[in-house]
């Protein structure tokens, strides 16, 4: 069901089938807000992705003003190099020259406008940035080449490893570098060589048709997809030599009538309830407080029902996860004396 279908049902609940009171844009904004709030409260949406290393971007740019000239149909943009004194510099000695300082600082390696250039059998002189998936919300699990990696801060890496920019090896951690750009850096930098060009666009989560070349260090390879001929269709997720992540999704806004909301169909009714509740509560000609309260209550019930559903998903487990240091649940009905209390008078 697309946003257009949801809109029809929302308007039916609002008794405004022709949109005389609540416009499509108003309801769409409310829907987008509600789905973000619903996801924040329930964490119902999770996804899995594998990312090749190095990341592949569609375009690079240098200055902020270039952003608005980038093609709108793409989203994977890389801000390359570094800004200094209203200009862009490649090497670390360039700011010295611009500042009329004669000395030249030693640099760590090469600089590039696309991260894959740093993996052409050279040592990159800057961090090799990756980009989280477009719908990334909160990381739940990450692994590189089938081994878990931890989240750390850049402060921790810089404090413990003076050579962290040039160091290479098997990544054991990652740190975010800019949350607006949804970017992160693997530490240490994985030893990979970019050996073939990508077909397709942007981050190749499931790139097909690429060949692995074992002799120069393989980059994530993915071929084959749905297996529709054998029972349940399965889409196999490959893990080798790439970043594998499980994350809570940040739902993408619906923008057009044909957009498909990310939530599964059986949860979308709660988004409808929340949207209708907000519409009835908004200060418009259609404001009816009692109905606004009713639909808001129905929405909150939906949040609770969704949490119950998430608990049901874990029901087959034979164990319970507890937080270290927090005492377990007490089941005694009556107060009890300490174990060391003498049973009889000595």
């Amino acid at each position, binding site marked *: 069901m697309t946003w257009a279908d949801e809109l029809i049902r929302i308007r039916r609940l609002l008794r405004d089938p022709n949109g005389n009171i609540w416009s499509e844009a108003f309801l769409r904004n409310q829907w987008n807000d509600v789905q973000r709030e619903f996801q924040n409260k329930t964490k119902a949406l999770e996804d899995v992705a594998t990312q090749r290393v190095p990341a592949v971007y569609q375009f690079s740019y240098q200055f902020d003003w270039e952003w608005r000239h980038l093609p709108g149909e793409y989203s994977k943009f890389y801000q390359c190099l570094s800004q200094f004194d209203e200009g862009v510099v490649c090497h670390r000695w360039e700011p010295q020259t611009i500042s009329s300082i004669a000395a030249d600082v030693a640099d760590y390696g090469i600089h590039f406008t696309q991260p894959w250039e740093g993996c052409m059998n050279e040592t990159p002189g800057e961090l090799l940035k990756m980009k989280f998936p477009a719908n990334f919300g909160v990381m739940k699990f990450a692994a590189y080449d*089938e*081994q878990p990696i931890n989240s750390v801060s850049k402060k921790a890496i810089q404090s413990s490893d003076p050579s962290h920019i040039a160091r290479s090896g098997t990544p054991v951690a990652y740190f975010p570098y800019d949350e607006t750009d949804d970017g992160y850096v693997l530490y240490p930098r994985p030893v990979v060589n970019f050996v073939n060009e990508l077909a397709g666009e942007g981050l190749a989560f499931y790139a097909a048709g690429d060949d692995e070349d074992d002799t120069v260090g393989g980059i994530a390879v993915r071929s084959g997809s749905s297996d529709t001929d054998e*029972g*349940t269709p399965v889409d196999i*997720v490959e893990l080798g030599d790439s970043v594998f992540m499980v994350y809570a999704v940040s739902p993408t806004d619906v923008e057009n009538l044909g957009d498909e909301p990310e939530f599964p169909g059986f949860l979308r009714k709660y988004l409808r309830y929340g949207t209708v509740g907000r519409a009835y509560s908004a200060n418009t000609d259609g404001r009816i407080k009692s109905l606004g309260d009713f639909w808001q*209550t129905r929405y909150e019930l939906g949040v609770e029902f969704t949490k119950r559903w998430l608990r049901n998903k874990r*029901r087959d487990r*034979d164990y319970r*996860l507890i937080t270290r240091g927090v005492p377990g649940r007490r089941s005694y009905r009556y107060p009890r004396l300490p174990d060391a209390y003498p049973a009889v008078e000595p």
Partner: protein
Amino acid sequence: MNQIERKVLELIGEDPDNPDVFVDTPAGMAPIRDAINDAVQEIVMLTGFHKRQCYVPLREGAAFYRLQLNTGTIGWITDAWSVTQQVRLEQTDLLRLSAYDPRWMIYTGSPEAYFPVGKDIIGFYPKPPSDGNVVELTVVEIPESYATGDDRVKLRDSFQYAAVAFAVSEYWASRGDANEAQVHLAKYLDALGLSREYLPFLPQPRFAQTQKAPWPQVTG
């Protein structure tokens, strides 16, 4: 028009045999049918009464599989059975596996455990060393919406009253009567046996209290 729809029409004052507003066409019945479909999906989500069996043919070295059912959406997995090994797989999760052994993704072997990820992905530990094995899953299936009066409504008989109450509640809310809608919503929760847990979420009725003295006063 099926039995549940007829009951809903009766409760909202329509004649099911000669309906005035909700005529027996896809467009005419859409509001009632959509509400019943929402009710069925919510009841399955809460109770898990509708199950289905599906098979996952394992592939060499592949630990994660995205599942898609043809007739609905996966609610959750209740049982996983390794056909070749003839053992039940234990449910686990990523946190526990990583705490148990950080190299858990590397090992291959006959799967001993499974873990659900997201809404439709299942992972196996350890990952299969070869093609050949099949895992038989029993899953709670949240059914797709039925479209016509002749389609099967995947609902237990004992929950039919709950679905009716749900649809009647939505009808009253869409007619602008929040109080009546709330009354039927409470009946819906009661029919599911969830009223004790979730009824406090509904606004409680307000009682007016008089300030008059309960006995006659001497005046003048």
